[in-house]
């Protein structure tokens, strides 16, 4: 069983590593956000008395990277269905759950690595994490987020029939989640309506948890963040499992 999970995990990593455009695209967009917004709005942010905008922005952009990469990873499931490879997996003497687990872990690993890569690059442009032990906690948060969002992607890839459909649903989920979280602006000075929406957006807690660990600045508190993130992760894994189980060929 471990051997099967390992080869399925490895398959995802190989496929990812072999498509250079995927790697470049996944990291390029968040960096654009970081540079354009970070430098463009940095002085305004500082004048409003909120401190260094780059410091504030990096956790949000890391979350963005993992969110986009992980959900979009779901196209791999869609392609496996469309191109027939999934049949090879489904007739093998291996439980479906094992197939999902190996693949999702592979997808989550690629999502996590992209987030880590963005963190690394942001160090080069002046980002300074608060402390090393807390940075390690931040990695755990990134891994949780990657697993949850990859499960969501796997679920979507199991029930959606074609590429345009996948992109449309993706946009309906990703962009609202992202813009209506605390990724780009501080919540304490946001209008009440936005605060309430953000409160019901699981992504806010991921961003907040990363901010808490990377720059020691938390809106909800780390305990709340972890609880919300944990519940979301479980729910998304359940969603992915149910959808993947229902696949018929």
């Amino acid at each position, binding site marked *: 069983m471990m051997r*099967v999970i390992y080869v399925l995990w490895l398959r995802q990593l190989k496929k990812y590593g072999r498509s250079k455009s995927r790697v470049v695209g996944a990291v390029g967009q968040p960096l654009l956000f970081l540079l354009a917004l970070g430098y463009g709005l940095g002085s305004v942010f500082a004048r409003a008395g909120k401190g260094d905008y780059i410091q504030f922005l990096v956790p949000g952009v890391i979350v963005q990277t993992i969110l986009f990469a992980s959900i979009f990873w779901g196209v791999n499931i869609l392609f496996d269905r469309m191109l027939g490879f999934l049949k090879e997996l489904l007739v093998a*003497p291996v439980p479906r759950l094992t197939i999902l687990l190996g693949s999702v872990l592979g997808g989550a690993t690629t999502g996590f690595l992209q987030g880590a890569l963005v963190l690394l690059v942001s160090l080069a442009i002046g980002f300074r994490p608060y402390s090393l032990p807390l940075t390690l906690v931040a990695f755990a948060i990134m891994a949780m987020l990657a697993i949850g969002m990859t499960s969501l992607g796997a679920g979507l890839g199991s029930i959606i029939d074609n590429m345009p459909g996948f992109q449309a649903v993706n946009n309906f989920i990703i962009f609202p989640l992202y813009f209506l979280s605390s990724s780009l602006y501080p919540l304490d000075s946001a209008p009440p309506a936005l605060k309430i929406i953000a409160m019901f957006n699981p992504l806010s807690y991921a961003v907040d948890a990363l901010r808490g660990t990377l720059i020691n600045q938390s809106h909800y508190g780390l305990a709340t963040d972890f609880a919300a993130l944990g519940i979301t992760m479980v729910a998304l894994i359940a969603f992915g499992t149910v959808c993947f189980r229902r696949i018929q060929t």
Partner: protein
Amino acid sequence: MNSPTIAVDHVTKSFGDVTAVDDISFEVYPGEIFAFLGPNGAGKSTTIKMLTTLLRPTSGTLRLAGKDVVREQAAARKAFGVVFQDPSLDDELTAYENMELHAVLYGLPRAMLNERIDMLLKLVELDARRGSYVKTFSGGMKRRLEIARGLLHEPQILFLDEPTLGLDTQTRNVLWAYVRELSRDRKMTIFFTTHYLEEAEDIADRIGIVDRGKIVAMGTVDELRQQTGTDSLEGAYLALTGKAIRDEEVSAGDNMRAHMRARRR
């Protein structure tokens, strides 16, 4: 006679109001080559999907090497290899990697893995291309690789769903030569579907003629001729189904099924 490797007992499969497979029963024995011959939409692929655990029968039982495909799924899955009508390879992996993944899925011991993959890639004459990505392969090469992959775990049964569709004559001949050898030398049971009369006649020991979800006749070519009082398989086929086989024929049931499949996805 030995106990059958494939035993299908009163199996029916319906999709809503459409009955794709209607109360079929048949048995195939070790080392036998058995063909399902019938027009498109007769229920051939649906039968293979039930036999390979991809679809559950609405009623009836299917056993492979004595294992029930619904209740003893894992054991039944180990008993067969399958080459589907459409490709089921990972294009972004190499030929070797596709084989390796299959070996792990079927729990082949690491020690024998390399040797067996080498042997099979040589058998299908792809050993020189083992490190190439499958996306660079031609249709015939992909089909050969699928066959090699289907044989990797030494199954007792090999299912081939319209295996020669879209292949040139040369590749067809090579493929059937392999298959004959496997059934003769390893006593492997072969079950294939086709809508080519010549293929069923030349290759199969026994033929089941299917039409509209039912097996309308079963036997050797001679038996089928005798049953119908005709002098060729084609004559027998026409007498039984009342129509000639045409590639382009698509029945209403076919359209319906394609539609429902699309909706279920």
